[in-house]
């Protein structure tokens, strides 16, 4: 054996190099033979294919998943849209063809040419869209003349269709064309230029499930660009379906009753947190957004004083007004500042320092204890209770009841409202808290702000024995055969900071709001179902003391907001509702009837229909 050192053995090296050379020669031979095969043996065939640009790729759009309500009624599906396109490569004389198209489509010639020039240089080998979603009449004309229109073709693609116009528009949301930044962000790997993605509502929150996966075809075409044969197909994969917790019938009743009003209605299943109704008025028609909304309609939506693009149920922040008295009651009872027997005397006002705080009932409630104070919504009782508890303890209970934080509903843009504390005021305004301010807070005015959804979650918890649920809008994600892909479980968000005894007192008071003849919402009493609730009237514009203005004399936008929150049946609730009517003036007349109508329909009490009919007729002073 030769000693192997730094100098390689010549014989050994020679043998290695020869071995390697053989490998290289073999590899090159294989490659070279392959080139001969492709270029000489199959050359003519490939030359022909290349001259016609015969093998092309066409995309197939994937249909989005459906959106269903809790009873599997379809809310959103897809319809075919006939899109007029042109393949410039096959078009021949483009100007001549466009002149014909412009006549057939009643579209200015310049617009068509602009679409083509906007598509840019790379567009020569890719279809350019001339007009999306053409009408059946135009379709018939184009199809009849298709042999006079080289390069022009109709592409049938699935397009979003919102079946019930203006129903649950804020909840369902809408789509918009993906923009360049989003494409580059890598968040949408299956989306291509021209595709639509969810822009609002569940269409946006659940984009990843709803969105399908694009398919495509390798096709061979003739010299006119017409398909001769399909070489390979990759079928698109339809997006997954969403099963919502929404009840379509209830949603539509709520929306009908909100017509011509500004406001929001939320209904929950108090035992799960399922959202049965999530309505905000005024709304918009999502079908306007399909294929891009025109700027006139968009401008109208943006400048409307009723703010149709705001989902008031989750984004509207309002003073809770008298509905907040429930929280003041909880705080005072739990802090042992009062008990069920503690009374206050209400002469119609409350003197505090050198100021006079008025009760809504100027005649006064007389000697009153907590249950009647709830049912008759006595302000004086709560001025005193709030003063005893103090702002920070009140805030502690309010936050424990789910206020001042988002409920966690899977919709974008939820607001969290505001519950003031003394340290908050110090930080925000650099001022100390005045005890007098606590009096306003105690009756839900002042800095207090809540959303209708927060109040729905809260009142549901009062009804169900104390569990705050995270509102759920989608219960399941399903495949197109109805097969379950993913279940979304209900989620508890904690317990109300309240003992059993306190809760019973509150529940008793809430029941009397409707069931007692002096209750503030006695007018919505139903025959069979017992409702427990609380009215509220939130001041938008404060009337100077002593003055009494008739509501009708106030400018609409200065009128009070009306609240009603409730659950039913009182003994074993299956529905909890929160209604807010902007500038509706009185909770009992503007808000409560909507809740009663929903309850009547949901639990089947025909007596509610009377209330539903009369809701807009009478207008009397209650609270």
């Amino acid at each position: 054996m030769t000693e192997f050192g730094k100098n390689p053995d010549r014989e050994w090296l020679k043998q290695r190099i020869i071995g390697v050379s053989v490998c290289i020669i073999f590899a090159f031979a294989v490659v070279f033979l392959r080139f001969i095969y492709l270029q000489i043996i199959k050359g003519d065939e490939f030359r022909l294919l290349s001259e016609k640009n015969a093998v092309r790729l066409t995309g197939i759009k994937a249909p989005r998943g459906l959106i269903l309500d809790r009873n599997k009624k379809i809310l959103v599906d897809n319809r075919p849209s006939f899109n007029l396109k042109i393949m410039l490569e096959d078009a021949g004389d483009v100007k001549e063809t466009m002149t014909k198209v412009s006549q057939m489509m009643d579209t200015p010639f310049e617009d068509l040419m602009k679409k083509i020039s906007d598509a840019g240089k790379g567009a020569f080998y890719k279809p350019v869209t001339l007009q999306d979603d053409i009408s059946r009449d135009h379709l018939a004309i184009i199809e009849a003349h298709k042999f006079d229109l080289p390069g022009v073709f109709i592409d049938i693609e699935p397009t979003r269709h919102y079946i019930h116009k203006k129903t649950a528009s804020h909840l369902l949301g809408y789509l918009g064309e993906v923009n360049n930044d989003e494409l580059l962000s890598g968040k949408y790997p299956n989306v291509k230029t021209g595709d639509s993605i969810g822009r609002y509502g569940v269409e946006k929150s659940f984009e990843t499930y709803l969105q399908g996966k694009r398919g495509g075809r390798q096709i061979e075409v003739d010299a006119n660009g017409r398909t001769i044969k399909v070489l390979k197909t990759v079928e698109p994969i339809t997006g997954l379906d969403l099963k919502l917790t929404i009840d379509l019938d209830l949603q539509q009743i709520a929306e009908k009753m909100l017509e011509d009003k500004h406001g929001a209605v939320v209904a929950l299943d108090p035992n799960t947190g399922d959202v049965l109704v999530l309505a905000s008025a005024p709304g918009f028609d999502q079908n306007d957004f399909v294929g891009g909304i025109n700027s006139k309609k968009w401008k109208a939506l943006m400048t409307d004083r009723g703010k149709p693009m705001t989902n008031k149920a989750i984004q509207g922040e309002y003073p809770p007004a008298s509905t907040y008295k429930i929280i003041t009651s909880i705080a005072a009872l739990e802090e042992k500042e009062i008990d069920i027997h503690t009374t206050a005397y209400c002469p119609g006002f409350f003197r505090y320092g050198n100021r006079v705080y008025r009760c809504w009932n100027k005649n006064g409630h007389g000697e009153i204890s907590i249950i009647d104070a709830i049912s008759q919504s006595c302000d004086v009782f709560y001025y005193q209770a709030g003063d005893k508890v103090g702002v920070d303890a009140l805030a502690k209970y309010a936050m424990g009841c789910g206020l001042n934080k988002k409920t966690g509903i899977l919709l974008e843009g939820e607001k969290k409202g505001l519950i003031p504390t003394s340290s908050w005021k110090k930080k925000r305004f650099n001022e100390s808290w005045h005890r007098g301010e606590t009096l306003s807070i105690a009756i839900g005015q002042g800095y207090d702000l809540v959303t209708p959804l927060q109040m729905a979650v809260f009142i549901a918890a009062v009804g169900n024995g104390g569990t705050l649920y995270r509102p759920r809008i989608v219960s399941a994600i399903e495949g197109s055969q109805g097969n379950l892909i993913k279940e979304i479980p209900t989620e508890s968000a904690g317990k109300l900071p309240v003992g059993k005894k306190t809760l019973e007192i509150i529940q008793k008071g809430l029941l009397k709001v409707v069931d007692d003849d002096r209750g503030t919402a006695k007018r919505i009493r139903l025959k069979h179902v017992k409702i427990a609730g609380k009215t509220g009237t939130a001041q938008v514009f404060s009337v100077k003391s002593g003055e009494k203005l008739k509501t009708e004399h106030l400018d609409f936008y200065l009128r009070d907001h009306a609240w009603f929150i409730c659950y039913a049946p009182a003994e074993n609730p299956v529905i909890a509702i929160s209604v807010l009517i902007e500038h509706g003036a009185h909770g009992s007349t503007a808000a409560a009837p909507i809740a009663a109508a929903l309850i009547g329909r949901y639990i089947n009490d025909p007596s509610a229909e009377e209330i539903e009919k009369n809701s807009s007729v009478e207008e009397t002073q209650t609270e």
Partner: protein
Amino acid sequence: MFDRRLIENFDWGFLMVIFFICCVGLVVLFSALTAGQEAGAVSSLFKKQIVWMGSGFIIMMILMVMDYRELDKLQMFIYAFCAGLLVIVLIFGQISGGSRRWLVLGFFRIQPSELMKIALIISLSSAYSTSVSQTGINFRKLIKPAILCLIPFALIVDQPDLGTAMLLVLIAGSVTLFVKVERKVFFSLLVTGLSVIPFFWFMLKDYQKDRILTFLDPERDPLGSGYHIIQSKIAIGSGMLTGKGFLKGTQNALSFLPEQHTDFIVSVLAEEWGLLGISILLVLYFILLFWGLNISYNCRNMFGSILAFGITAMIFWQIFINTGMVIGLMPVVGVPLPLVSYGGSSVITNMVGFGILLNISMRKFSSH
């Protein structure tokens, strides 16, 4: 001091071959980049490529001043530096096309995985140069080379860049077989390799399996790589014997191939210059490779001999994988064609390799 003999021994022939390949490369790149553009507009990428090639030649010359045997001493440092860059790229690298392989340095960006190839070859040559024996290398002496190869392999797979990772393994494997392993080592490696594959396969996630299957069989993805292969074959075949002529390629002009100036550049050459053009390029590459083998054979130093072979192997595998892919014989992987495909990192890496080969060639008679 600088030895006069070095200049006398300078390998002008090898330099000429490199130069000719660069010329062919630029002509084809010009076609690929000018396709579908307005007349007269010279792409900025073309100018960049010329700058890269110029810089490559300069680096090549600088490398010749230092004796290649110095690399044997510096090998650990070079290796650690390149491995460090690979780690940095995983953390700070720029993502493009779904993988993280670029390191942005001011106005230009580099691909550390390219440089790693050279570093690995140097380190392997150093390791094997002391462990070669007539009967072949035994197990114990394979441990270090195996580790040297696995570290960059894992880092590059993670980017993920399956093509370059595979290339690394092929280069390391070639060098190992070149220095010869014991017969029993060879067979046991083969057996363990084959038995480990199914095990790894089950550990992969579905999308990873999918990626590898598509990589092996482009037909699985008729809208992506499968389509590219068809268009590539049409382009090549339609060139026939003499081609359609300079700048006359229609497939090329249609921009059907997304990577026609990088990975699919051979199809442009084949379409416009036909089988004749392909033959010229293949002959040039053939000469280049045998020149490299000749340098390896004539080197009187074990380290230099293995190093020269390793670099030749690197060039060979790039040529073979790239052309094999374009003609539909190999998986679709992002391996550039040396000196023809557009790409700064690739040009520089190959030029560094040629610089080392010239270096070894010059010093073939001075052995220590």
